[in-house]
């Protein structure tokens, strides 16, 4: 890597790290005030725990050689990862491993036991994230290699499958097993809309590192990835705004922020492969699919509290399939089918593996004495901030 690319990858890595606190505020603003510390901490603690897991064995399992399905322990504690290129790649990828499980927490917030969650983080990154990352992004991975053709495998520029679909499926598993929130039927309003927009803005800002950094160089691909990222996010945001106006007559701030995030999710796998036209198309598709996915989910009994599946799962699927359609030269619209099929296989493989193994991990954690998924009723009523963290988010009783 030349110094320009190192400069870009350093800052891109910092940007992706910042996305996790951004997510913390995006999610934190959407919950009730008595659970805001808890919701923020689900994300924040991931920086602590997953950084350690990744440095010790996560990177090695994902990228430390190995076969079609999993890496090795050869790079335990990053031993052997000594040059600038290798360390830079390990650092950049670490930031992805940090945010992915944090995304899941939107499904189970306001009622998930924090201690159990900390154990879940270790297991999930090890058993779900690292393998799928290896499949898709390591040169030996079976999805990277491809299943049907000889021209290489699935196209996932910055993590449509590895990050978003993966998190979206784990979200379904978690929401289903932890059960609905008490009182959710009374209707829960976001307690701090400025935080939601602050979080979405930090996510948008950081996403430039996420997508434009995924080419690992400061070059034309990075510039295009930057441009299409912004374009798709803007379009999906406006689709949400327009659909929100049609259905509710008002320009919902939370809706605009959600649409932007959905657009960012969708362009993620496509960012290095499509142009402005593809970004516009994906933005429209992303907005429509994710908006109605949220409306549909509202009709089910699944309490995926912050609609992780609708936004990240559906948004990611639209992006991954859309990449197979719009990818310059190799997409469906260019008359090629290989990439399209490979991407569908990758989507399905990720969905199944993530759902099944996430369910397994959660089931086991649920029965381990002293852990268990669900907070007690009184802890939930009191709010997890007091119950699990011993803190009140906002103290305003004016005394002293």
């Amino acid at each position, binding site marked *: 890597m030349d110094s320009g690319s190192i400069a870009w990858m350093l800052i891109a890595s910092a940007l992706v790290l910042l996305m996790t606190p951004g997510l913390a505020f995006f999610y934190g603003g*959407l919950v009730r005030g008595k659970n805001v510390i808890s919701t923020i901490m689900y994300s924040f603690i991931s920086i602590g725990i997953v950084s350690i897991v990744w440095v010790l064995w996560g990177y090695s399992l994902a990228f430390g050689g190995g076969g079609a399905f999993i890496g090795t322990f050869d790079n335990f504690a990053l031993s052997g990862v000594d040059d600038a290129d290798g360390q830079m790649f390990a650092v950049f990828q670490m930031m992805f491993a940090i945010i992915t499980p944090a995304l899941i927490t939107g499904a189970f917030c306001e009622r998930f036991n924090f201690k159990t969650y900390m154990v879940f983080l270790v297991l999930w990154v090890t058993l779900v994230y690292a393998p799928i990352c290896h499949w898709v992004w390591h040169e030996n991975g079976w999805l990277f290699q491809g299943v049907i053709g000889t021209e290489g495998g699935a196209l996932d520029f910055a993590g449509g499958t590895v990050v978003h679909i993966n998190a979206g499926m784990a979200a379904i598993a978690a929401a289903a097993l932890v059960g609905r929130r008490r009182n959710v039927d*009374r*209707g*829960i*309003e*976001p307690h701090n809309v400025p935080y*939601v927009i602050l979080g979405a803005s930090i996510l948008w800002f950081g996403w430039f590192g996420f997508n434009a950094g995924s080419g690992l160089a400061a070059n034309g691909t990075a510039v295009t990835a930057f441009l299409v990222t912004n374009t798709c996010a803007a379009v999906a945001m406006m689709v*949400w705004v327009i*659909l*929100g106006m049609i*259905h*509710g007559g*008002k320009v*919902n701030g*939370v*809706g605009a922020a*959600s649409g932007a995030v959905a657009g960012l999710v969708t362009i993620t796998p496509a960012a290095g492969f499509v142009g402005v036209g593809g970004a516009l198309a994906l933005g429209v598709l992303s907005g429509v699919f994710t*908006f109605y996915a*949220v*409306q549909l989910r*509202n009709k089910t009994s699944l309490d995926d509290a912050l*609609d992780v599946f609708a936004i990240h799962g559906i948004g990611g699927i639209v992006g991954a399939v859309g990449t197979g359609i719009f990818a310059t030269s190799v997409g469906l619209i260019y008359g090629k089918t290989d990439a399209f099929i490979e991407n569908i296989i990758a989507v399905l493989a990720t969905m199944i593996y993530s759902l099944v193994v996430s369910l397994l991990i959660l089931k086991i954690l649920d029965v381990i004495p002293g852990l268990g998924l669900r907070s007690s009723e009184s802890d939930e009523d009191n709010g997890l901030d007091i119950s699990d963290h011993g803190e009140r988010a906002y103290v305003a009783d004016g005394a002293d």
Partner: protein
Amino acid sequence: MIKIEVIVRPERVNVVIDAMAEAGCTGFTYQNVTGRGTQEGIEVFTGRGGVSHRVAVPKVCITSVTEKSKQKKVVDSIISAAKSGDEGQIGDGKIFISEISDVIRVRTSDSGTNAL
């Protein structure tokens, strides 16, 4: 002396306070509250296009302690300031009147109506 507690829509606070001052009230204390009357609650957006039913809504409670003789005048002026349109609307508010046995001004230790 009586205590007049008025629950009004937040956007009416200043108008109601002005009207009460006009009618002779000399001091006020108000605070944000949440309330629910016979109205059935309102529909609110829950962030992402969903619609949810909120039973209680934000209100402001204004308290003023004043002479009993002013009661009618104050109540009338509150009603005209707080009512939405000629017909009034659900959620316009309530006025509660109760007896106060004594008032003391901290600064001067005055009590009774002198302290108002």
